């Protein structure tokens, strides 16, 4: 027995020797291999790189990946506020915005080798419309798509709509190869296949974890001298992990780091903290159908009790600007002359008194998305300030799905009183923004203040109608509509977020475009 034990020990130690030698060998081989290795860009984020690979369906986070594999007819540059041609070289509108004609770019190939033409455009948009999933509703005004000639396509609309903006949408406006899609079954794309015209080809996708993209050599726009041969998008949940990886240069770019980390990283010469405006804004929706928040005075009191400055400074860590009105500063329709609330606890107390608010009323329920650290901090600070004016609040962090479900409960009593909301535009248009959040709705969807006012409805409907032709009048109407929101206070407009994308110093060429939040167009970037 003893001998056996000893021989076991011997076996183990010789195994270790083998391991050590193997380790050395590996080190050498890896060192030798790095010299000729192709360049890899690694983008890490806290969410899945993509959920559904079907470009007609996906609307849940695959914006970055899809915009590198697929392309849209046009792209919107939100910093210059202009539309750039992409797969369409030019377009015209006629018939009061009811007919749109696009000239399609020549010499563009899909990843499967087939050529882009007007038919492919018609096929892609019609497929998206027919499937009716994801954000396909942006095409709702379109009644007919006609192939005029090989490189011209015409859209007929039922009502005037900014089809050029719609074609820049960050989801549901992608053009895919008809040949590839037709030769497979319906689910083929969903299962993790992609055939677009974009600069990168899908090489491998591990569901929910990682996407590996390879440069497409036949890309129509060509390649510069230096490029990334591979672009990898990966989910890394812990923000501390993401920060450590980017600081060591193990990753090229990352998003959603906490403000504290960003502040510290600014002094690190190895990383660049890119801060830019975004079209996302955070607001707080009051339950306007249930006491005490059904009272306008109480809502105004709550708006005065909100610690705007502290929230911008500490909850958002300074990476935000205080909101003015419902629409973010970068969105057309925003007005610089709107009223802005600021914290005034005395005034809030006075308003509560005026409203006969009873100090002993029930605890109000404040829900927020539990994974949003900034919202959590905002909620805690607001809670402590509301307590100062005698209002008790219970906080509840929930997954978005359950929070949304609770807010749509049939009985008003089951719903929350205060709801922390994050909103972003589907395409750069104020109407869909205000419509979704504040237009009367028969069935509750995103109008989570449950607010309904025919006067407001008419204001934004008119503003939308005028937008195509009398921009000034339209702006004035949007201004009026937002003034109304501020006075009625169904909602507190808190701040416009800033996009913060951290890149390693070796990762060059990134340009921020708030219309495609946190998207890196890898074709623009190069290693150094």
């Amino acid at each position: 027995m003893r001998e056996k034990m000893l021989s076991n020990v011997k076996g183990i130690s010789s195994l270790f020797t083998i391991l050590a030698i193997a380790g050395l060998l590996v080190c050498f081989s890896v060192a030798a291999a790095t010299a000729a290795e192709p360049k890899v860009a690694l983008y890490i984020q806290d969410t899945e790189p993509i959920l559904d690979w079907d470009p007609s369906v996906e609307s849940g986070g695959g914006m970055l990946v899809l915009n590198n594999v697929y392309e849209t007819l046009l792209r919107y540059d939100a910093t210059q506020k202009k539309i750039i041609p992409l797969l369409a070289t030019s377009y015209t509108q006629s018939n009061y915005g009811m007919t749109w004609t696009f000239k399609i770019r020549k010499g563009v190939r899909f990843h499967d080798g087939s050529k882009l033409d007007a038919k492919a455009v018609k096929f892609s948009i019609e497929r998206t419309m027919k499937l009716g999933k994801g954000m396909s509703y942006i095409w709702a005004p379109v009644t007919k798509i006609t192939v005029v000639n090989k490189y011209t396509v015409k859209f007929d609309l039922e009502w005037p709509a900014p089809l050029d903006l719609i074609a820049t949408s960050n989801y549901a406006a992608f053009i895919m190869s008809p040949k590839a899609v037709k030769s497979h079954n319906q689910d083929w794309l969903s299962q993790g296949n992609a055939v677009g015209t974009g600069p990168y080809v899908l090489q491998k996708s591990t569901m929910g974890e990682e996407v590996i993209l390879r440069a497409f050599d036949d890309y129509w726009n060509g390649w510069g001298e230096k490029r990334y041969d591979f672009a990898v998008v990966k989910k890394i949940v812990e923000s501390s992990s993401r920060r450590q990886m980017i600081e060591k240069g193990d990753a090229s770019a990352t998003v959603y780091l906490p403000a504290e980390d960003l502040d510290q990283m600014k002094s690190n010469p190895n990383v660049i903290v890119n801060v830019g405006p975004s079209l996302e804004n955070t607001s707080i929706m009051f339950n306007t159908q249930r006491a005490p928040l059904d009272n306008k005075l109480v809502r105004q009191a709550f708006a005065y009790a909100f610690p705007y400055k502290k929230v911008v400074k500490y909850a958002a860590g300074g990476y935000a600007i205080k909101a003015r009105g419902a629409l973010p500063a970068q969105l057309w329709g925003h007005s610089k002359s709107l009223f802005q609330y600021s914290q005034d606890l005395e005034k809030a107390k006075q308003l509560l008194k005026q409203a006969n608010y009873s100090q002993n009323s029930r605890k109000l329920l404040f829900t927020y998305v539990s994974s949003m650290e900034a919202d959590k901090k905002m909620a805690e600070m607001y809670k402590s300030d509301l307590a100062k004016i005698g209002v008790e609040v219970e906080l509840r962090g929930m997954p978005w799905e359950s929070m949304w479900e609770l807010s749509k409960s049939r009985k008003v009593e089951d719903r929350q009183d205060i709801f922390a909301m994050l909103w972003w535009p589907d395409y750069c248009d104020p109407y869909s923004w205000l419509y979704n959040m504040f237009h009367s709705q028969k069935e509750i969807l995103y109008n989570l203040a449950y607010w309904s006012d025919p006067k407001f409805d008419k204001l934004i409907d008119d503003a939308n109608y005028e937008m195509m032709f009398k921009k000034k009048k339209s702006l004035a109407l949007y201004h009026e509509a937002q003034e109304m929101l501020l006075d009625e206070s169904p909602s507190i407009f808190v701040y416009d977020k800033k996009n913060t994308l951290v890149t390693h110093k070796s990762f060059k060429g990134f340009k921020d475009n708030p219309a495609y939040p946190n998207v890196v167009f890898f074709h623009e970037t190069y290693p150094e």
Partner: protein
Amino acid sequence: MRIFIIKRLLLGLLVLFGVISVTFVIVRVIPSDPAAQWVGPRATIEQIEAARVELGLNDSFFVQYGNFVADLAQGDLGKSIRTHQPVMTELKAFLPATLELVFLSTFIGVFLGLYLGVVSARRKDQWVDHLCRFFSVATVSIPAFWIGLLLQYVFYGTLDWLPLGERLSMNVKLFHEIPDITGMLLFDSLITWNLVVFWDALKHILLPGFVMALFPIGLVARMTRSALLEILNEDYIKAARSYGLSERIIMWSYALKNSLGPTATVVTLAIGYTLVNTFLIESIFSWPGIGNYIASAVVSLDYPAIMGVTIFSAVSYVFLNLAADMIIALDPQVRT
């Protein structure tokens, strides 16, 4: 013996059926709207309605239950609400990574645990024993999610000895042939003698493997110690001692062998526990396994995925229990 096994199997099936039913009920009462989720973040009312029909959510509860059981019988766990992919396919893709982690940590746990237990029992009530006992109690008391973060900071952030997470480095993944036989990288790469991959995979699995091994270490050590202490008081050990056999031989060849029965039960228990612990640990180490999968599923209330993992774990539990029972039944001491 055969009757015993058949009886246990039948009972296991019954329990499984119960588990499936309870899971179904639980998941249906979780407040969320699967239809709205199915469509995505910016759903319209019409889309949600269509999805409700597509997913069969308008059917009565019992029809839904019937469909669910019928599908399950064919190995169909439904489609994930988030990714729209069959849950079964996803489970299969994520399973090997988890199994690898569970096996390795159980392996580490059993060996270190046995060793600690034996040392502790041999030096009973000496300071070594106290230290070992303290250590083994401490390992089951540490919040694993906390120690995981701490170790990451030390071994990656400060010392830079080990990678932060995942199963392979990006370079290895992109530019090396990754063997895929069982999906368990350590095993596959060793079989195909792919040392680059083996070394890389080993470096990656060390930290999560160790964190997950903590609990089994403590469990096995404690159980081994108390089982050994009992056995060391038995007459045949005393007899062996009186023959002048060395303490080492008595311990390793007589006593330990006879304490393996209870230890085996504990090991199955430890495997079960480790499996659940992956839910907390994998997401910290970005380990692409079942635990990570269910962590995302829970956050977004992806109920088919939650059900799939629950049923999978329950099945493994039932089998583990069965295995433990059989080990006990096969143990000569119990049988006589």
